[in-house]
């Protein structure tokens, strides 16, 4: 018998682990979307008749199907502003305007090209700062009073603007802080849109049986998808079942509802199962990372004490709200960085534009602000003539300090992480010699703080013990490749003191696995661990009660350990759980545990408790820069994250490697490119660069910091380290060359232009 960890590994390498992509049902038809070629256009007419005439075409879906009131036509992670197919306007290049169902995917593709859509092109806006100017084209003419907006004090859209959310953080008096400062310095940093590039594309298969809808999806949020589908069909959520197997990567792209609403509506119209699989090119216009512009201004005393910081962030939300409201919230709160600063003012804006939808992306909201504040902090130190490490030491948050939100921070380890990173690259030692005469070497550091989850959340875990002694963990956590099921098995075994091999973890099915907010925000291991602990305590209590009943004693007299119960009157070697259940005539026991967090901040001041605990990381990089080409070579990278307690070391280290890989690609070359009409110009993996193995530095190391106490809190690692990597590399470039680039990626051409702008004097 093998543990889930090994079983999954074997199933993966032998091609036997199930993916939604492999789901095939009898009578299943295939869909293809009709997408807008315009960034912003009124839809005058949609005529599918030429497509319907093609042999093998089953049906087409247009806005006409959404307007008779049978369906609720919108969905969305927060504001329901995204129509299943466009109703009045197309809002970005690639927006879904109609869809066709056919017997074969190839026929659907051919038919989609035959749907005639008449557009009236409208002026478009792509830049979030421009989109806020008076007179800018409106992406949504009306939001309040038209779309369903959940009761959420954080999210406050306004009609007549593209402003989707404005988050404020106010602490102290920032103007007074600047007045008291000896040195005030302001910069602007920016980072581009990206695409997630999960190996597996978005896929959803929907089937109706009578009034019951079943959807197989590669989603990170099965319960959320269930509820959105129930709302679309105006049925109770129990009528919708969402099944999730393993995901071929997510990185945030498979959060909330993506293609499930369309698949379900198409299956409803076609009266047969329908599968939607996006092409790689469609992937690039379906989910993107928020492009952001960050203006940051700091006031500092001559001795290197930070006294004031003001930050203004514009997140480009794209055409639909999705999670952009909470991204502004989390980014606004995190924008100061892990520093003790008495006077703080932050304004974070999430802005609608005619770009493809920006959605959660590994490192959510924080990558953009960390790129700004860690470069800016480094630059401040250098301009003051201080060592960047020493400058950070003087200003880092320590346990007991108050964060920008006013909350007192405990269990924080920024100083230790930063020192660990510095040590790893021998920060105080001599720099390694350059490998060629035209190259120069430098090193850089970065340290970051990140929230866990952007909203209050609850997770439930059920444990089912049957009379054969098998223990099943029922959880709606999704295995995205991070090994969630293996961790569940391991933590259940630990909590119940039984071998990992006897624990089963079935795949997610909302009909049987209990409610969960979603596998996002590096929250799953933490939430599951605590919910599991509560469920295990419940199961132990039930076992003790059962044994007490069978052996006529009290539960207090019963010991539960090692998969057995020990009670006065029972055999001395104990009774295996299965035998206990059989003896008592009980078929199975089901225990439950829940864990929830409550977080709250005032949107006018940002004051409150913004995260149950805080994720913490530091990175250190050594780079070599070719002064003739501007190309940056990453020689050494170290990533230190706070883990609290490591459950599965190889998988935990792989999360840090994954974060490092994402981070170095974002620093060096990853970028979604658009033309002037809002069309993605690199929507394929030949032109859009993702990292190759050879991009990973030969010298990489990682630290997973653990607390010394016996049972410390687990900290999520899925995205913690990522935001620290690009600024560490940017700071190393500055150290090596004197060049400070405010914008990633640090392409050779940009570096060379900056080197040449320095002039020959600085080049020596």
């Amino acid at each position, binding site marked *: 018998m093998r543990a889930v960890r090994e079983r999954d590994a074997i199933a993966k390498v032998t091609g036997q682990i199930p993916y939604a992509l492999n789901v095939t049902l009898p009578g299943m038809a295939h869909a293809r979307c009709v997408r807008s070629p315009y960034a912003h256009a009124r839809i005058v007419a949609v005529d599918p008749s030429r497509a319907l005439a093609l042999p093998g075409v089953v049906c087409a879906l247009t806005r006409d199907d959404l307007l008779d009131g049978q369906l609720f036509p919108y969905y969305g992670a927060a504001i329901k502003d995204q129509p299943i197919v466009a109703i009045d306007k197309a809002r970005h290049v690639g927006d879904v305007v109609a869809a066709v169902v056919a017997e074969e995917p190839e026929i659907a593709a051919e038919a989609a090209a035959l749907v005639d859509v008449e557009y009236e092109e409208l002026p478009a806006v792509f830049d979030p700062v421009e989109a806020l100017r008076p007179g800018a084209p409106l992406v949504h003419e009306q939001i309040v009073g038209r779309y369903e907006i959940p009761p959420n004090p954080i999210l406050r859209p306004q009609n007549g603007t593209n402003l989707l959310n404005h988050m404020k953080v106010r602490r102290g008096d920032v103007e007074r802080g600047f007045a008291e400062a000896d040195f005030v310095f302001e910069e602007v940093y920016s980072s581009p849109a990206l695409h997630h590039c999960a190996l597996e594309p978005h896929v959803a298969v929907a089937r109706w049986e009578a009034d019951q809808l079943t959807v197989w999806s590669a989603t990170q949020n099965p319960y959320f998808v269930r509820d959105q589908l129930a709302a679309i069909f105006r049925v109770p959520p129990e009528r919708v079942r969402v099944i999730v197997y393993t995901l071929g990567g997510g990185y945030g792209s498979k959060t909330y509802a993506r293609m499930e609403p369309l698949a379900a509506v198409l299956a409803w119209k076609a009266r047969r199962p329908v599968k939607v699989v996006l092409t790689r090119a469609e992937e690039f216009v379906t989910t993107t990372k928020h492009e952001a512009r960050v203006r940051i201004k700091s006031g500092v005393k001559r001795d290197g004490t930070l006294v004031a910081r003001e930050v203004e962030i514009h997140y480009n939300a794209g055409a639909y709200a999705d999670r952009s409201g909470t991204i502004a919230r989390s980014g606004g709160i995190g924008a100061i960085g892990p520093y003790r600063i008495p006077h703080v003012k932050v304004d974070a804006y999430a802005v609608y534009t005619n770009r493809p939808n920006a959605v959660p992306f590994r490192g959510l909201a924080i990558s953009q602000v960390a790129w700004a504040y860690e470069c800016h902090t480094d630059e401040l130190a250098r301009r003051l003539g201080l060592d960047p490490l020493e400058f950070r030491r003087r200003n880092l948050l320590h346990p007991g300090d108050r964060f920008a939100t006013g909350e007192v921070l405990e269990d924080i380890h920024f100083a230790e992480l930063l020192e660990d990173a510095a040590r790893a690259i021998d920060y105080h030692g001599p720099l390694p010699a350059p490998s060629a005469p035209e190259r120069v070497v430098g090193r850089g550091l970065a340290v970051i703080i990140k929230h866990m989850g952007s909203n209050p959340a609850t997770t439930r875990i059920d444990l089912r013990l049957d009379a054969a002694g098998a223990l099943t963990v029922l959880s709606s956590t999704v295995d995205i490749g991070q090994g969630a099921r293996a961790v569940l098995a391991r933590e259940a075994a630990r909590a119940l003191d039984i071998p990992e091999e006897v624990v089963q973890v079935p795949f997610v099915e909302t009909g049987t696995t209990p409610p969960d907010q979603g596998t996002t925000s590096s929250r799953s291991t933490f939430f599951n661990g605590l919910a599991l602990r509560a469920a295990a305590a419940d199961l132990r209590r039930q076992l003790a009660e059962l044994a007490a009943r069978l052996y006529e004693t009290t539960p207090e007299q019963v010991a539960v350990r090692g998969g057995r119960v020990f009670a006065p009157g029972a055999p001395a070697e104990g009774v295996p759980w299965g035998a206990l259940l059989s003896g008592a005539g009980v078929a199975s026991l089901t225990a439950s545990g829940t864990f929830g967090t409550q977080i709250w901040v005032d949107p006018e001041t940002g004051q409150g408790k913004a995260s149950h605990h805080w994720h913490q990381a530091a990175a250190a990089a050594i780079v070599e820069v070719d002064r*003739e080409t501007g190309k940056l070579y990453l020689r050494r990278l170290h990533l230190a994250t706070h883990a609290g307690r490591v459950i599965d070391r190889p998988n935990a280290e792989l999360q840090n490697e994954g974060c490092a890989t994402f981070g170095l690609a974002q620093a060096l*070359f990853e970028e979604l490119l658009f033309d002037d009409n809002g069309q993605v110009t690199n929507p*394929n993996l*030949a032109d859009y660069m993702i*990292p*190759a193995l*050879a991009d990973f530095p030969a010298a990489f190391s990682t630290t997973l910091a653990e607390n010394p106490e016996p049972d410390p809190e687990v900290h999520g690692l899925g995205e913690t380290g990522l935001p620290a990597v690009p600024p560490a590399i940017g700071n190393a470039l500055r150290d090596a060359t004197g060049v400070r680039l405010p914008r990633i990626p640090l*392409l050779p*051409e940009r570096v060379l232009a900056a080197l040449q702008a320095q002039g020959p004097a600085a080049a020596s």
Partner: protein
Amino acid sequence: MPDLLLHQPRSLDEACATLARYDGAARAIAGGTALVLMLRQGLLAPPALVRLDTIPGLDTIAEVDGTLRLGALATLSAVAASPLVRARVPVLAAACALVGNVRVRNAATLGGNLCEADYASDPPGVLVALDARVRIHGPHGARELPVAALVRDFYETALAPDELVTEVCIPLPAPTGVYLKYVTRSAEDRPCVGVTALVRHAADGRLAEARVAVGAVAGRPLRLPAAEALAHGAVPDEALFHAIGQAYAAAAEPVSDARGSAAYRQQMVAVFVRRALRAAAAGQQGAWRV
């Protein structure tokens, strides 16, 4: 991908006759690494494909009468691994090993690479520097062209629609040197600039000959005989490498793409011609990604 007819000829004559029958509308397919992407993206919609891998004997690599003959269907992996190529023209073997990734190299063929005439590719420039020629089979018999004349412009060759490249021929002994593949983004990116520099030394240590081909910056690899001639009888020093680099940079008419603007490429041509010449003159042999 739309339905299309797949022809499986057993001989070159049959393949050319089939291509002729379609009057330019059909496409020959070897490794398919480029063609299949174009079909999938709808950039091409031929009614038929003509397989070349069903024709025996097109992937042979041999040395015949002082010429290295590489069958057009030899994969880039096979060229990279061939003991003969590695011994006689190490720069070509090493350059082929830098193309794309291992999955691409195992399928892509040397002939297909030339006939695609993608500017952002490694082998064409190397072959141009080697004075390689291609043998072409057509309905009216065989002919030969220098690779430099085969590749005309972006995705454009001198082949008639019913002609096929059958062999790539490299005169031996080839001068020795290096290929530098400069990538500006991921390690698996195509080249921003690819420079081949090959030299022959005279007995006195001076250069008897230098050849430089600059690839990936324009529609076809660039060779400048006048600039190469600066090396004849010259002492191989930095001033010479610099002068040749400047001459190539001045003559290049680079394209702008996501890998680099025209202005940036112009500067990189000077840098990498100089560096490639320096390495070749120092006796280095091989290909490097930088």
